[in-house]
């Protein structure tokens, strides 16, 4: 008997040490890849990491010290940049709204069990994949060439990507929705839009709204970046302010602060609202059970 337990213990230890060895090798490989990758990126960069490291804080320090000297001007600059911040927020909000509408329709068309044309479900899924895969930048640049600079190319570009991103998430939520209300509505002769509107939307609305808010926060960032390549809004102002260089750092700093404050504000707002949405739902379920 002791021999058998010894054998079991030995084989267990052998297995354990083999697993540990695998783990160590994987970690070593991962770290080696990271190191080699950073080394390669460093060699392709215009300036080296080690040469640049001491001066990393120079630019922020110059920005802050100049803005500090001209602190009186900063609120004025912020006031002047406010319309472009509103434009950036409008771009993000409009494209989130349009993307949510498009994403909802596409999600319903791409969810098995809900789709009006079940045979076309794979087609709509691939369409969502493609819409998700195209970066906003690509569509924005093409549309800026055709439509001229401004917020509309940005709205179209971000909406398109949002349809893809939200469509997939919405469809995952809708897949888990109970089909019983739909069957009930079907039995009394409700049409497809009625079945969806009264049977599915009330079930998925909290989760969809939560994803929509998450997307809004992402889209604010995207809209700022697109402004930087010519689509208007605060990103465009930021680009101009930076290109003026020293002497105008107070303007750049004012815009940096506004952009930062906006992102943090909406980050916090959406996370509070999402938590409330999801938790509110849990409370409802508990109440129902008692």
């Amino acid at each position: 008997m002791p021999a058998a337990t010894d054998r079991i213990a030995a084989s267990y230890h052998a297995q354990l040490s083999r697993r540990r060895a695998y783990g160590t090798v994987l970690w070593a490989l991962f770290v080696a890849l990271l190191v080699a990758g950073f080394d390669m990126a460093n060699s392709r960069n215009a300036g080296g990491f080690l040469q640049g490291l001491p001066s990393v804080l120079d630019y922020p320090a110059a920005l802050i010290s100049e803005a500090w000297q001209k602190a009186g001007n900063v609120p004025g600059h912020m006031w002047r940049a406010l319309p472009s911040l509103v434009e950036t927020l409008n771009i993000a909000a409009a494209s989130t709204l349009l993307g949510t509408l498009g994403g909802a329709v596409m999600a319903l068309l791409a969810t098995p069990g809900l789709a009006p044309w079940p045979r076309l479900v794979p087609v709509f899924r691939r369409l969502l994949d493609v819409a998700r895969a195209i970066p906003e930048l690509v569509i924005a640049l093409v549309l800026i060439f055709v439509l001229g600079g401004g917020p509309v190319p940005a709205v179209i570009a971000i909406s398109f990507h949002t349809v893809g991103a939200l469509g997939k998430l919405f469809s995952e939520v809708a897949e888990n929705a109970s089909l019983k209300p739909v069957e009930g509505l079907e039995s009394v002769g409700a049409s497809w839009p009625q079945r969806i509107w009264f049977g599915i939307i009330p079930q998925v609305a909290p989760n969809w709204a939560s994803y929509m808010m998450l997307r809004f926060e992402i889209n604010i960032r995207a809209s700022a970046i697109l402004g930087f390549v010519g689509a208007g809004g605060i990103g465009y102002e930021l680009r101009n302010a930076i290109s003026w260089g020293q002497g105008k750092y107070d303007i750049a700093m004012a815009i940096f602060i506004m952009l930062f404050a906006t992102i943090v504000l909406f980050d916090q707002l959406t996370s509070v609202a999402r938590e409330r949405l999801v938790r509110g739902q849990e409370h409802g379920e508990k109440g129902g059970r008692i």
Partner: protein
Amino acid sequence: MAVLEINQSAQRLMTRKRMFSLGLPAVALAYLVYVAIAFDLGGLMGRARLDNGALLLQDFWSYKVHVTRDNRSGEISSSIEGMRNATFSPANRPGWISGDDSFGRVALPQGNAVDFAPDGLVTLTTPEGRYRIRPTGTGIQTDITDPPAGFSISNSRFSADLPEGARLTVTRARSEVFRRQPGWELFFFDLSSPFHGKSWGELARLAFSGDRLDPQRSNIAAMGHDFWQNGIWHHGDVAWAIFETILMAFLGTFGAGLVALPLAFAAASNFAPFVLLRQITRRFFDLLRGVDALIWTIILSRAFGPGPLTGSLAMLLTETGTFGKLFSEALENIDEKPVEGLKSTGAGPVQRIRWAVMPQVSPVILSQLLYYFESNTRSATVIGAITGGGIGLLLMQAMQTQKDWEHVAYYIVLIVLMVMAMDWISGRIRARLIRG
């Protein structure tokens, strides 16, 4: 009485719900109308350059061959898109151009043709008639009295738009014919390659035949080399740029994961020893996340210059904030029983984390990392366009020249394929992780 009350309250609830379900779309619609006015949607069509759009769509799938007669030297040359490194030699000229260096005939689709005479006279033949245009020392002369639609004539310039995107322009300096061909020109081999102009069958035969076109190496190696070094499309450079974009995403995502993991312990309420430490770490994550990758890119490129390292580090900083938040949430949601179990055997903090915490959170962390890796591939394209690295930069440059739209189409297709491939791979690995 009670029934009536319940009935009334139900009625009120229904009315409120109805108001809500009608009011919400109304608010959304009103907002969209406001945005349409604020963005001047009405004036947009006036400013839009639809001709740019038409040009772009045409260039996406076709290219122009230019046949040009220099009216000073009298020389005729033909090239693709007027590119000097894609000029045809008389031997590899397309079949629809005949003649030699001083005179020639260019056959165009639907029965049109243009003849260049040695003395400079240009004759345009269409199914409707024959038109003569002569460039002179000061401008042009024609015998056309009533020009058909698509012709435009002035003292210094004649131009005619012909079917299927063909076009003839005559000025004092040069007479030029454009003919559109479907496809992406010289996509596989450029004109300097001996494999240019060969059919698929010929190429396949050459690839497996013994007699070498280039004595230095086998035909198949030469084909690979010529394709990779294609002077117009630069496939090798493009592949490298895609690799660089994926590298940026990889370094940004997994580097951030490595930095964020230890910090996340300090931000998780069940691990952090002091409330103050937790608050500081959390605000630090908010700061990193709030300073968007765009701002990090601007700040870092001042110190490190443009390039993939700057992009990687900018992404790393932002994502450290994101992962710090996500990981600390995962850490707060662990089951604490295994930790207690280990504690009872006298295990220290490192051992408790290694054997009780990591096995619980590592699948969550890995799957989040993989998910963000895919989405960061897309961000890396955008950041690359700003900070100068990867396929984003190539796309931006091709856009700014406003000429190489077929290259733009090529890059777009590659970006979409790249992101879809990353999506697929990360989805596969995540599915495997979840299944265990």
